[in-house]
């Protein structure tokens, strides 16, 4: 009687591995296609939006031209170039001084690839509002990207943390 004939379970194991390898390859390809699909969907949506905008502009061009001209007349694009860092700091310091705010920190840095100015100062709420008004009315590109104003206990002043950006 033969007692040591080889077991051929490895044939079945090879079958599992073959299917698993095939499944892994198909999953990888399907995942890649799903990423491509997501990108194409965004592009298709943009193309649709662009096409519908073009259609609308071609149908009602005069009406839209009047609206756009009015917007540009009322709120013109900021003029000139964006300020270099040193000039930006100096201009900001002057603005703070003009509104009697007590500057405690001014730190240029980068956030998400764009340069910002982080400020901390104290003053009355009226002076802080005045500072914000001047920023709004200035012709430059600077605007407030983050603002945090906290009332100080027992005093009539507030402490403000402001991040300025030009992008």
């Amino acid at each position, binding site marked *: 009687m033969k007692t040591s004939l*080889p077991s051929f379970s490895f044939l079945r194991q090879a079958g599992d591995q073959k299917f698993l390898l095939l499944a892994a390859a*198909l999953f990888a390809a399907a995942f890649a296609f799903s990423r*491509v699909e997501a990108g194409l969907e965004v592009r298709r949506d943009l193309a649709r939006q662009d096409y519908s905008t073009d259609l609308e502009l071609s149908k009602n061009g005069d009406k839209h031209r009047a609206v756009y001209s009015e917007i540009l007349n009322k709120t013109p694009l900021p003029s000139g170039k964006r300020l270099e860092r040193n000039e930006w700091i100096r201009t900001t310091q002057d603005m703070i001084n003009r509104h009697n705010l007590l500057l405690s920190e001014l730190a240029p840095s980068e956030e998400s690839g764009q340069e910002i100015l982080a400020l901390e100062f104290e003053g009355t709420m009226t002076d802080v509002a005045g500072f914000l008004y001047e920023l*709004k009315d200035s012709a430059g590109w600077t605007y407030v990207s983050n603002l945090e104003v906290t009332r100080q206990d027992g005093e009539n002043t507030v402490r403000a943390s402001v991040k300025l950006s030009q992008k």
Partner: protein
Amino acid sequence: MNRAFFSGLQDMLQDLPVLRRFAHGLSERPRMRAVSFFSAGRLDVTVFGAGDAPSRESIPVPESPSQEDLQKAREKIAGFRQEQGTWIHVIPRQAAFVKTFSLEAREGESKEAAVLRRVREEMPHLADEILYHVALQENGTPGQEALLFGIAKATLEEQLRRLESLGVVPDSVMLSTELLLWLYQNDPSRREEDKNVLLVHDAARQIEVLYVDRGALVQSRWFGKEADEPAAAAAVLQTAQEAFQREWRRVPEKTLVLGNESRGGYGGIPCEGFGGEGPDEAALGSAALKAFASGAVFDFTPASWEDRRRRSRTGREKTRFAALLALFAASWLVLSASRAAGLALETAWLGVRQAPVSASVRELKNLRSQALKAARYSRKKTSPLLILAGLRAAAPQGLILQSLAYDEAKAVFSLKGEAVAENLIQDFLAGLQKQPGFEKMTLERLESSSDDRGRIFTFEIEGHLKKEKP
């Protein structure tokens, strides 16, 4: 899963054998099943497909096979085993022990103990050498009768090893005698009062005969056959009938042959078919599958082989799971690829349609782009003041704001403050909701506490600036 869908998928994948196997695995169609038995150096396998007529494979497996013999046999089995789900191995009568004996329990002796004692009395030297089980039957006389079915352990091990060497670990091992008896006892055409019936199983090189009286097995024998010809079978059957008459002093009243093929060649011996359609091997295989499904016939697989069987089943399940996984991935791939192609086509088509329109409005689009940029910048610059103005307009007397935080990128702001009455906070929230530039104002937190000023309510509100329309 939708049966029609997978049926359609199968048709679609007719020319892709690997993927067709995945689809086959997923559908609810029964899988291939096989019933085998060794016979004179060959493994006879009856393969049952999905609704098709069973096919017969006879694979030469010599007692001492060479590597070449084994390889050939394995390849032949692998050819029809790929889609097979269940494998039942039947041990023929010549390799088995079948005995009937009376069972009288002694005083104070349990039935199990009586059976064990009687087995040792009937087979004093063999009880430890065979794997057996005992059933009880009524034979029309007072007292019970024990019916023992057994297979020599060595024979069983050898057959299982030979099967394993061919890549097969059966799901069940049955004894042909027990299977035939079960098939007859469960035959709807059988009558309880049928006496002295001969059941005949005409296998290729042997004939197995069961003597049955009113459904109870009296005796079981097998006879070798000179040739696989009707004349040889008739001669054997004649011998069997005479042996029965001589030994039991009874005349067989009926002879039933397994299967329903014509038995006209039995040399004038009248006989009927039983046990279903088709030739012997198909009827036996079909009976084995039914018995396996119902669990009615004893499985002689030794305990030492249970683990190997479990591994074999696990292996098959793993293959099936891997195939399902691959089919799922393939479906996902086809879906993603077709959607991506659809999106690319639609984008290209939009580009084609847009080209003439776009050329005519290019200057206006530049103006629009500048206007939008200007509006966006204006909004960025005015947003902090818009918030301050809104807060001033909405804040009632008796409410003090402690802090304000604003994030331009998210167009969101949050407020913290305190009030001397809860309704002031509700008024403040209502006032904020009315501001034209604000939306989604929510009260995030409200707490009350008491100090030397009396009861104070602190709150936290979050709101959003309305998004600009392009």
